[in-house]
């Protein structure tokens, strides 16, 4: 993901507060795919992610006029999405270890034969290992490794101290490592060498 220029971000926030539709479109274009990816992998269900995504944006619009001038968009948006998912879990008394992965409507976009051979099995293993982690570890990895938030920003999103987040990340890494066999890690190294 591309880091958002802070000046541009502050300008977007000011325009959002004034109710400018173009500013909203820019924020939506930048964050909608990221929020959906986060919610889909957090909930492991595409249909739930779609519902939560809609609710997230409705909350964004409702709170936009009261935004602080110095708000950081990514932590704010991911906090809303994450809290909605937490509420959803509480309302359904959901166990984090519930459903099988239902992330794609049918299959992911058709990969090339090379990509399929090289990356398919590895990605599947990583995906399954990630999905097998409990919620607090999965969200920590999703926010930092996939979404590029700093550990401090991820701590804000999850409502914990930066130290707690660092511990969670460390624990999440070791849990993930335990669930991936050594060949998976080797495959990552090979892939990084051969892929552009």
């Amino acid at each position, binding site marked *: 993901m591309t880091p958002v220029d802070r000046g541009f971000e502050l300008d977007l926030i000011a325009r959002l507060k004034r*109710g400018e539709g173009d500013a909203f479109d820019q924020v939506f274009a930048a964050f909608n795919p990221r929020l959906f990816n986060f919610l*889909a992998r957090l909930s492991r269900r595409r249909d739930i*992610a779609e519902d939560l995504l*809609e609710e997230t944006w409705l909350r964004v619009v409702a709170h936009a006029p009261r935004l602080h001038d110095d708000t950081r968009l990514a932590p704010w948006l991911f906090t809303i999405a994450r809290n909605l998912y937490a509420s959803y879990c509480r309302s359904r008394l959901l166990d984090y270890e519930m459903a099988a992965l239902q992330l*794609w409507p049918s299959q992911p976009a058709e990969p090339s034969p090379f990509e399929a051979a090289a990356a398919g099995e590895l*990605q599947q293993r990583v995906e399954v290992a*990630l999905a097998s982690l409990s919620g607090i570890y999965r969200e920590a990895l999703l926010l930092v*490794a*996939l979404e590029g938030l700093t550990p401090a920003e991820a701590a804000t999103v999850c409502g914990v101290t930066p130290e707690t987040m660092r511990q969670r990340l460390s624990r999440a890494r070791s849990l993930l490592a335990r669930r991936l066999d050594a060949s998976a*890690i080797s495959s990552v190294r090979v892939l990084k060498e051969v892929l552009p």
Partner: protein
Amino acid sequence: MSSSRHEDALMRALAMLPPVVPNATHADRLRARCRARLERPPHHLSADLESKTVGAVSAMYAWQLLQLVIR
């Protein structure tokens, strides 16, 4: 991304996962709906009427009390 994360094979493996992408049609519909709501926030007419009604009734009551006191 920080350099330490690049050194971590596990984090790299995570970063390489293909993104789960939202349905484009749904996304566009959602964007348009939210944009419209941002540009034209719902006007709380009932709340306005309620506060005006309470104000008017209170003024009338105060006026009646004042008349009683004057008599």
